[in-house]
C-alpha cells in the first residue's frame, strides 16, 4: 500500500531546487547483537529540502529513531549514501561527524536531555562553546535563542527548577542557537502533557514559518498535521511519503 503523492515543490527558503539539503540513497542499518541481525533500516531513499517540515511516523521499533540518528550523524549507515548539502557524510570520521553535527544539526529529544549541572543559559550555550565561538558571540546567539522560545527570563535557572514544558523549550533553544541546517526532534512531546506538548509544537511551527528545516518523529496524529510532509516507516522501509498541500 504505497501511495506517493507528488505535489508541486513548495519552497519556503531560497534553496536551490536541484540539490536537496539532505539526500539518503539506499541507506540500510543493520544491528548485530548476539549473533542476531536486526535490519533497522532497509533501502531508505529520502530527500529533505531546505525549509521543509517533515514528520516521520510509524509503529514502535520501525526504525524512526535509527533514521534520526543517521540523519543527525550520531550513527553511520551500514550501507548506502548520505549527502548533506551535497557532501557525502556517510563515512566520515568521528571528529568530522562531531564537527558537522555541531554546526548543521540541532537535536531535540523526548526527555529534554538538559545537563542538570548547568544553568539554562549554559545549556543553550554549550553547542556554541564546542564550536569554539567567543563568549561575546555566544551571548548574542544564546539570548536570541532564549528570546525565541520565551525563556530568556529563566536564563539563570537550573533545569530541575523548570517544568517539563519549559525544559523542552530550553532544549529547543539549545538546538536553535547555533543556527543549524536542520532541527531533528525525536518525539519531542512524548514526555509532556498535552497542553505543554501543544505549546512546543506551536513553537516548532513558528520556527518552521520562520524558515527552519525540521524533521520530527511523532506518534501524535494531531501534531503530524503541523508538518507539510509525512514519511511513514514500517519495518525499516518508507511505506508512504505524503505531502499535504499548504
Amino acid at each position, binding site marked *: 500500500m504505497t501511495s506517493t503523492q507528488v505535489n508541486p515543490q513548495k519552497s519556503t527558503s531560497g534553496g536551490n531546487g536541484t540539490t536537496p539539503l539532505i539526500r539518503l540513497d539506499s541507506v540500510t542499518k543493520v544491528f548485530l547483537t548476539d549473533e542476531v541481525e536486526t535490519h533497522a533500516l532497509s533501502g531508505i531513499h529520502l530527500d529533505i529540502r531546505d525549509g521543509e517540515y517533515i514528520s516521520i511516523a510509524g509503529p514502535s521499533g520501525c526504525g524512526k529513531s535509527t533514521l534520526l540518528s543517521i540523519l543527525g550523524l550520531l550513527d553511520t549507515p551500514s550501507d548506502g549514501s548520505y549527502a548533506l548539502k551535497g557532501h557525502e557524510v556517510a563515512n566520515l570520521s568521528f571528529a568530522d561527524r562531531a564537527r558537522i553535527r555541531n554546526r548543521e544539526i540541532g*537535536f531535540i529529544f*523526548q526527555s529534554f536531555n538538559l545537563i542538570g549541572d548547568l544553568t539554562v543559559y549554559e545549556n543553550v550555550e554549550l553547542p556554541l562553546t564546542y564550536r569554539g565561538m567567543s563568549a561575546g558571540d555566544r551571548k548574542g546567539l544564546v539570548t536570541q535563542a532564549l528570546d525565541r522560545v520565551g525563556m530568556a527570563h529563566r536564563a539563570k535557572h537550573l533545569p530541575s527548577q523548570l517544568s517539563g514544558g519549559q525544559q523542552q523549550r530550553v532544549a529547543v533553544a539549545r538546538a536553535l542557537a547555533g543556527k543549524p541546517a536542520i532541527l531533528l526532534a525525536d518525539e519531542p512531546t512524548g514526555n509532556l502533557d498535552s497542553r505543554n506538548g501543544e505549546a512546543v509544537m506551536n513553537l516548532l511551527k513558528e520556527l518552521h514559518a520562520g524558515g527552519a528545516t525540521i524533521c520530527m518523529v511523532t506518534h501524535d496524529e494531531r501534531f503530524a498535521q503541523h508538518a507539510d510532509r509525512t514519511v511513514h516507516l514500517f519495518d525499516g522501509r518508507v511505506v508512504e511519503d505524503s505531502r499535504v498541500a499548504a
Partner: protein
Amino acid sequence: MIRDFKFALRQLLKAPAFTIAAATVLALGIGVNTAVFSLVNTLFFAPPAYSKANEMVQLFSQDIKDPKKFRGFSYPTYLDIRDQNTVFSDVMAFNLAFVGIGQKGDTRRAFSAVVSSNYFSVLGVQLARGRAFLPEEETPGHNASVAIVSYSYWQKQNLDPGVLGSQILVNGHSFTVIGIAPKGFVGTMQILSPEVWLPMSVYDQVANDFGADDKTTIADRKGTQLRIMGRLKPGVTPVAAKPALEGLAANLEKAYPVEQKDQTFITAPVARNSVSNNPRAEGGLKAIAPLLLGMAVVVLLVACLNLANMLLARGTARRKEMAVRLALGASRWRIVRELLTEGFALALLGGVAGLILGLWSSDLLVASMRKLMPLDIVWLAGPNPAILMATFGFCLLATLMFALGPALKLSRSALVADLKEHAGEDVVRRRWRFLPRHPLVVVQMAFSLALITAAALFIRGAGKAASADSGLRPGASYVLEVDASLAGYDPARAQELYRNLSDRLAALPGVEHATICAVVPFGMFEQSRKVQRAGMHVAPDAKPATAADGLAFEASWNSVGADYFTTVGLPVVRGRTFSEAEATQPGPKVAIIDEALAKKLWPEADALGQRIQFAPTNAVSADSGGTAHAGGSADVNESSKPEETIEVVGIVPATRHALFEKTPGGGIYLPFARGFQSDISFFVRFHSLSPENESNTADLIRRTVREVDPSLPILSLSTFAQHLDSNLDLWLVRAGAALFSIFGLLALGLAVVGLYGVKAYSVARRTREIGIRMALGAQAGAVLRMIMGEGIVMVATGLGIGLLLAMATGKLLSGILYEVGALDPVAFTAAPLVLTVAALIATWLPARRATQVNPIQALRTE
C-alpha cells in the same frame, strides 16, 4: 545489637566485591598501624619481662660539680650501697660484656651480662630451669665457672634438657650451665637480650678489654664497671628516696674521699633500650615513636577517607532503600546505627587481615635488624593482648573516620530523595562550582603527598648515608676481625700472634698491604678519649675555656699498625707514620692526630712535635658533636688516668668515624703496641678484587688465619664496602626510608585508586551527560579535557594543601633526617611529580573511557 550485626553482615555479603575492596583498604591501613604499634609498644611501652617494673629504678652516680657527668659503680661501692641504703628492698649490679661464645675456631659474638648473684631475684624472675647464682659465686676471686643461658640459646639447642649441666665456652673459658632463663626474659632492656648471664666473680675474665691501659679489677674501689638497679621498698617513691640516697652518697664520700669524690646518687626509670651510666641516654630514640605512630595513623586516615568515598558512592545507589526504610517509619538514628554497625563489621574484617599483615611485617622488620646485630633480639612474634586491644582500637577509630560521615549524610539525603531526577543519576547541584568535586579525595591526595615527601626525604637520606664518604680510600680491601682472647691468649701472646698473622696476610698473593687496627671506622664500636695539651694540671674546680688553659677535647681513638695509613689511603700531611718498631713494641710514647684535633689543640700553632696527654674522664671538655654508640655496650675508658705525655709525630687528614658524625670531630691514633686490644681488625688491601674471585679471596684469608692458629675465631670477614654497607646506623637510616616509603606508597596508592574510583564512578554516572555533549558536537578532545580538567583541579588542590602538609612534616622530621634539609628541593620536586603523574594517569583512564561513550546508547534511556 547482635541483630544489627547480623543484618550488617548480610548487607556486606550481598556486595562481596565491595566488601573485599573495602576490607583490603582497611587491612592496609590497620596493618600499618598494628605493625608500628607492636614495634613502638614493645620498645617503649610494653611492661618489661620482669615483675613489678614500676618499683624498679636505676641508680646513677652523678658528679655534683658537673651534673651532666655520670659514671658507673665499683663492686665495693655496690656492696656498700646494697648494705647501707634504706630505700630499696633489694639492689643488684650488673654490666654487659661483649663476648665470644662457642667452640674453638667457631666462635660467634654475643652479649653477656655479668651480674650480682641476686640479679634474678631482684628482678623477680623465676628461671625456667636450674638455679640462680649463689652469693659465693659473686665474690671476686672466686671465679665461679657457672652460667645461666637465655631461653633463645636453649631454643637454638632444640630445648635439649641436657643443656642444663652442659659446658658453654665463653671467651675460651668453659662454664657450666646451671640455669635457663624463662621465655621472653631479656634482662633489663626490651628486645635486646644477653645470651648468657655470668656471675660477678668472673668479671675480669670476660669483660671487655677496651682501653687495656687503665684496667681496674672488679674488686677495686676505683672501678666504674657496674650499673646498679634497685627495687624501691613498697610505698617509697623516687622523690622520697632522694634525700636518703644523697645522704648515703655523702657518707660514702666521707669514707672514701678519693674514690667517691663529688659523687651523689640519683635514681631514674630503668632505660628500656640501652644500658648506660647516663640517665638521659634514651631521649632521641623515644622521640621517633610518636612520629612513627602519627605517620601510620595518617595512612589509616587516608585509607578511611578512601573508604568513606566508596561508602558515599555505594550509598547513592542505596538511597532508594534508605528512603523506603524511612518511609516505613525507621528513625534516622536507627539508620545511622545500622550503617555504623555495617561499617564496624567491615572494620573488624579489615582489622583481622590487618593484624595478620601487621604482625607479619613487624616480624620482617625485626628479622632484617637481627641480621646486623650481634645481639640476640628477642621478639615474641604473634599477637598479645596489647596488640589485640590496639588493633581493636584502630578498628573503632577507623569506623568513626570512614562510616560516620557517610551514615549521617546518607540518612539525611534519603529524606529528600528527589523524584524528578533520573533514577540513580548523579545530579550534583553545587553552589560553589569552582571548588573541586570530591573533597575527600583531595584530602587523601594532600596527606599522601605529605607522606611520600617524607619518604622521599628519607630515601634521600638513605642515599646520602649509603654513599657517605668515610674519608678512607682503602681500595679493594678486606676487613678481618679476630679476637685472640677468645682463644685464650694473653695480651703478650696475642700481640705476637697478630704480628705473625699480619705478616702472613701481607705476604698473600695479590695483597698490597695489610695492617692491624683496634677500631674500624663506621663499625659497631667507636672509642673516644679526651685529649689535652701536655703538662696540664687543671684544678678540679677550674673551668678552662681554651686548649692553652687545659681544655680537653673528645677525640676518636684508634691504635694502628705501621702500615695503617698507607693501607686505608690516608696520606700523612705532616710528620711521619709509625715505625714498625713503634707499632709492635711498646717504645716512646708517640701519636698521630688528625687535622681537626690538631686545630683544636693548637688553633694558631703547629701541633706537630708538640706533646699531648689523655685527660681524666672527668676533665672539662668541649662538647663534641654527634657521637652515637651502637647498642648498649659497655662504656669505654671509664677511668683513664692522666699519664705520661705523648709526642705528636704526624698529622693526617680528619675523617669521620661514624655515619652520624656530621663533621670529623678529631681523632688520635696510637701505635698498636701502645694501644693493645685483643679484639682487633686487619685491613687486607688487594691490588684489585673482582667479584668472581671474591669468595676465593675470602677463603684464602680464612685459610691463612686457620694456618696461623686454628683456634682463633674469625668474628667477621667482609670487604670494606660490605663493612660500610652493614653499618647499623645505615640500617637505621634505611629502615626509616623503608618504613616511610611503605607509608608513602600505601597512601599514594590509596589516594590514586581513590581518585581513579571517583573519576571512573562519575564517568559511569555521567554517561548520559557525556552523550548529550557529544550529540551537541563535543569532540573527543573536549570530553577528555572536561573530565581531566576536573581531575586536575582536584590534583592541584591536593598538591597545594599537600605541599603545606609536606613542609610541616619535613620540619617535624628534620631532627631525624640524615643530612637532608627539611625542605630538600629534590624530595620536594620528586614527590609532587610522582603524585602528579600517578594522579594524571588515574584521571586519564576514566577520561579516555568517557570519550568512548556511544551517544546513541547513552541517550537511549527513554
